[in-house]
């Protein structure tokens, strides 16, 4: 995925095979205080994040709440204006686009949200929800539009007759399917899935994941799959990036990351995931992290993980580790990872 030696701060050109290349993006949200609303600091939600996703592949983005996963997704969609850095979509830097140029790019990247209840307008029928992007971008009209809506409903496994119903008549899993149908309406290349299964029950999660996989095979979609569910990411993703406090700690092909994690945070994260087998659970040695994630307004100067890292030394508090390559496609930001 990442070119060899693409260390932090290195402005490597976007990868040719990649649909999406993110280069050194930082996102700082200002904090205002006092009567005159003076800026007193900033929340460093993202700091120097870079990665690529190749066409037809899935990058899993994992990390705990507040680590910047969703912000990354929103910056890529240009819902946020990044403080610094570039997002190349098919070789075009979309952070430099404005107005109609950006609008022309929009149909090619879509998003699926976490809460299927909140992301569907309760006053619109399912048909009009799915048709909205088609109307907005003036693709099809009249009977062709209706036919497209039916086709999309069918593609996500819903009865095409449901087009006249309202979102509240559907269950959580079905609503998520409606959200997916809407995202597919404009034939996108890239779909950012922001925790698409977090709000669903276990038995429904598998249905939605299978649907996403099937659509990827059929339509050649590229996914950025944001999730905190590591076992689901292992099943679904081709590459995985582990984020901690606004930075990527480790990025590797999925099997590699789960079989030989290098960053102490990844190791701790994996060991914290409960395994549904009591016999394994009894014998498991947990790496128990102490304390909580520090605030993003005032992150540690050196390695972001140094306050909770079991192997941290004085150097970690002062020097930010560089982004190193350890194996094929395996990158890590830690002074000690071998």
């Amino acid at each position, binding site marked *: 995925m990442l070119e060899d030696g693409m260390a932090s701060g290195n402005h490597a050109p976007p990868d040719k095979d990649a649909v999406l290349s993110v280069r050194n993006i930082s996102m700082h949200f200002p904090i205002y205080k006092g009567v005159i609303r003076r800026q007193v600091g900033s929340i460093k939600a993202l700091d120097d994040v870079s990665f690529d996703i190749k066409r037809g592949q899935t990058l899993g983005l994992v990390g705990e709440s507040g680590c910047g996963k969703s912000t990354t997704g929103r910056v890529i969609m240009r819902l946020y204006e990044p403080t610094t850095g570039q997002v190349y979509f098919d070789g075009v830097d979309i952070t430099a686009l404005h107005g109609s140029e950006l609008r022309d790019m929009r149909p090619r990247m879509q998003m699926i949200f976490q809460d299927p209840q909140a992301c569907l307008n309760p006053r619109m029928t399912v048909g009009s929800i799915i048709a909205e992007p088609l109307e907005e971008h003036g693709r099809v009209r009249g009977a062709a539009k209706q036919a497209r809506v039916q086709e999309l409903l069918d593609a996500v496994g819903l009865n095409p007759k449901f087009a006249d119903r309202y979102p509240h008549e559907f269950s959580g899993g079905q609503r998520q399917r409606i959200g997916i149908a809407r995202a597919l309406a404009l034939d996108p290349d890239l779909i950012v899935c922001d925790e698409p299964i977090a709000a669903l029950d276990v038995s429904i999660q*598998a249905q939605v994941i299978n649907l996403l996989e099937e659509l990827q095979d059929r339509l050649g979609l590229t996914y950025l799959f944001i999730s905190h569910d590591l076992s689901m990411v292992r099943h679904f993703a081709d590459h995985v990036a582990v984020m901690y406090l606004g930075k990527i700690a480790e990025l590797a092909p999925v099997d590699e990351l*789960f079989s030989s994690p290098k960053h102490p945070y990844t190791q701790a994260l994996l060991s914290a995931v409960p395994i549904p087998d009591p016999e394994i659970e009894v014998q498991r040695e947990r790496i128990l992290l102490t304390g909580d994630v520090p605030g993003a307004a005032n992150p540690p100067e050196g390695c972001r993980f140094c306050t909770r890292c079991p192997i941290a030394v004085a150097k970690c508090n002062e020097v930010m580790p560089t982004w190193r390559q350890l194996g094929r496609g395996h990158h890590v930001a830690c002074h000690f990872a071998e």
Partner: protein
Amino acid sequence: MESGINNNKPVLEVSDLQTVFRTRETNIYAVNGVSFSLKPGELLGVVGESGSGKSVTMMALMKLLPMPPAQIVSGTAKLDGRDLLQLGPEELRAIRGGDIGFIFQDPMTSLNPVFTVGYQLIEPLREHLGLAKKAARARAIELLELVGIPKAAERINDYPHQFSGGMRQRVMIAIALACDPKVLIADEPTTALDVTIQAQIVELIKRLRQELGMAIVWITHDLGVVAGIADRVMVMYAGSVVERATVNELYSNPKHPYTQALLETLPSLSGERDEKLTSIGGQPPLMTAFPKACPFAPRCRYVTDRCLGENPALLPVSDGHDAACWLVAAEEREPADA
């Protein structure tokens, strides 16, 4: 299982609990004849999807549901031989927070934001144990230390918003433990937390259980968490208990098709990655009528005519293991089938 002293007399015994929510439009049969018992020092995991009646069962036996619309139609819930469902409001007040402690899912909404953590901890101590102010305060600090809050003596004067999510859940645990309850009911205590924090809380509960020896009911939808912590597991579906067994037995020899399917849908964290996830088709039933057929029948792969006409009771599989499925009855008749 172990032949301890007095170990076989359950501290909490619920039998045939049935709760209905009566609204103007429909009746929702949320809990349909749930029975279980809890021995001293035992940890019972209650697993099920949302809407399966896990929380309502526990709320009903403490009469914490708003009545109306909720109505407890039948059943008994005996705490040391006293039926909680027959007690008046004053007697119940003495038991809630005294003999039975509660931990809720969301530590933010279950703590009162306008009172300090200390105040909320001291309140039950004075109310239930009749401690003087000074003694209660000393005990409160002790409790905060017990649940692993650093600098407890200083932090006791802080407000809930000054704590992180994991720390708030620790405060909730401290409050629940304040009066040395016989039974602790933990309703999805780690669902709102990150995995690394979840691991901390699980370890904390394990330690406290050894030190204090109370019985715990742990409600969750996460089969992984239960595998690591429970002694016995009860699986619920659509307001009924479908299977009960010891933790090892349930995971190694699940008998109810729902339990089996639930275990199969989970992607694993190691080993070969499956091409496709096994999913359970369909959706949970609406529960607008008392179940006359097996509630899982429409989604079950082994469904027979009998399942659609007759709801199976819990049938014994082996010692301490029973499942509500006609297959169990069939297997008993022809044991060669296994």
